């Protein structure tokens, strides 16, 4: 018997030795996710911005993509950031965004030509990581990002400044809504991370300090409500 079989037989024995086993709940009898509050686009957006601010993030509002890139460039200059890396967008054209940032004097790294070791080294020297996110959660100010080869997860981890691009219609009311939008199929195929504010700790006397190992600053370029 393998160690797995041994364990399973120990578990069966233990389960049977106690109280008689209850029959498994019929399908669908398990607790259902909480309901999604029915909020309009403006309310979701306002709630998201408030929750994001509460966890130490900041929103940059923009009417469209081009204004967002402009504002990101201005932000990077004001933070004395000289270099950035940008991941493939979902709806944003990352190539043209990169070109425009370069034009504004930001050194945008080309990340698509190297393996993991070199990638890590390059990214560790970059001031800002820019990535479009898949979803956001209004109630908690959370950004949800699925990773793939063109949107590596380190992009939102290594650089001290993290900038997310978010379309307003990707803001969902709560965590349950986001999990059901992602669904079991997608979560099995891609690593996903939920980001709620810049990295933080309360390990010294329970005092909150922002900026531990992950980004110290988190900005969200929020692109207009497309449903209007």
């Amino acid at each position, binding site marked *: 018997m393998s160690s797995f079989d041994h*364990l399973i037989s120990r*578990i069966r024995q*233990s389960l049977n030795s106690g109280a008689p086993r209850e029959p498994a709940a019929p399908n669908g009898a398990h607790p259902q996710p909480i309901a999604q509050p029915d909020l309009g686009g403006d309310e979701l957006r306002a709630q998201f911005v408030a929750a994001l601010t509460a966890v130490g993030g900041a929103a940059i509002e923009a009417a469209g993509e081009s204004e967002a890139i402009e504002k990101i460039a201005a932000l990077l200059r004001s933070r004395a950031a000289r270099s950035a890396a940008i991941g493939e967008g979902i709806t944003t054209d990352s190539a043209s965004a990169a070109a425009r940032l370069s034009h504004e004097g930001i050194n945008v790294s080309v990340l698509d030509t190297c393996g993991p070791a070199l990638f890590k080294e390059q990214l560790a020297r970059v001031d800002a990581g820019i990535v479009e996110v898949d979803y956001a959660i209004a109630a908690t100010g959370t950004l949800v990002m699925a990773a793939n080869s063109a949107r*590596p997860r380190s992009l939102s981890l290594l650089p001290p400044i993290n900038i997310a691009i978010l379309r307003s219609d990707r803001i969902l009311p709560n965590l*349950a809504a986001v999990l059901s939008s992602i669904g079991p199929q997608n979560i099995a195929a891609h690593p996903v991370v*939920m980001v709620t504010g810049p990295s933080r700790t309360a390990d*010294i006397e329970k005092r909150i300090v922002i900026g531990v190992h*992950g980004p110290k600053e988190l900005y969200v370029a929020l692109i207009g409500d497309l449903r209007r």
Partner: protein
Amino acid sequence: MEPSGPDAFYAAAARAAADRELNRKLENASTRHFEHLAVAVSEFAPYQSERDAARRIKEESIERLDELLAELKQRLEARGVKVFFAEDAAAARDYIVRVARQAGVRRVVKGKSMTTEEIGLNPALEQAGIEAVETDLGEYIVQLRREPPSHIITPAIHLSKEDIGELFAEKLGTAYTSDPPALTAVARERLREVFLSAGMGITGVNFAVAETGTLVVVENEGNGRFCTTSPDIHVAVMGIEKVIPRFEDLSHFLEILARTATGQRLTAYTSFLSGPRAADDRDGPRETHLVVLDNGRTRMLADPVLREALYCLRCGACLNACPVYRHIGGHAYKSAYPGPIGSIVSPSLFGAGAAGHLPFASTLCGACKEVCPVKIDIPRILLHLRWKMTEGGGGQVAWPQAPARVRAAAGWFARAARYPSMMRAAGRIGAFLLKPFGHDGYLRRMPGPFAAWTRVRDFPVPSGGNGASGRETK
């Protein structure tokens, strides 16, 4: 860290109880924790119903444990994750050391994981010549002090910022500061290099989803993300009880875990890991291993009362709620799992000889049960264990009568727990509580560890005390 019998515990508890400075730090931190928790819980209307939902899913998960672990294994292996089932701590340690050796790993970065504390992984790695660096700030601090963590969420809760400032100045050669942001910046800078050069990352797992084969890691600092993204090998270590059935179940757990553990809505990072990187991925591990640990958990499963302890999310709230923990801190318990939940799981994980005295180290005030996000009836399990430890659980003891007597005393405790000054009466309280057991006939023979716990109860007695019977046994 493993407990080493009652005597070491009584000595350490007595020392800690007399340490006013320690008591002050623990009180401050616990008070701050509950201030944050109160806000996070009260603003979230469905908190109570989410607790019930989470509890029901845990009940289902444990009931279907065999089936769910088989499903998890199959899903993970289909994506190239290597799944290893470890019967005990030694098997888990040996496996991880072997993987590290075979890959020529010299340096390991670790995310915060109580399970790896439980199995004593760091000493085993070091013995094999592999450097193991703790990367959670609190863990990093206690590792520099060559100390175990004293809390499962806040490992350095027993230290003041001045203590940490002195530690950094001494061990890292930085200029003394007691400013938390400055101290944090030092750790960030030191550990960045370590992350990028480590060959293996080792983390715990908060939830493992059987349906999708997803490992969920919850953290705030980003060190967990580094450990699971940057090194070529990721080893996740979890107890068998971490598996849950469905992806959608996660919403219930994630909505309550951070609120209770740290008073946040969600932690800064929740990672949903799927396994090794794809061929064209730029980051993520080349190899992923999952170590699934029994180490006494199937023994807990076999006991219908103790089984409930396997629902634990390791949120740490019961530690902060516990008047005994708040008084003596985590180190005195000499177990990787201190506080109320630790007193329940330690005898099963480390053996009754090493930890059988711990179920007695509680006032049964019930605060732990109140705060527990999955409503584990900790006092009931503690009583059950006391019964098992004393009369061997032979069924001759009229133990159902005991809780009623204890409950009568517990009202007093609940009030006392709210006023730190009144907690100084803990010695008296304890004696009062224990007395019925000693003189009431249904527990005629005072068991060894029990007697010793009574003997060493020497919390300061407030003036006006009428002489604690606990002291009479000295």
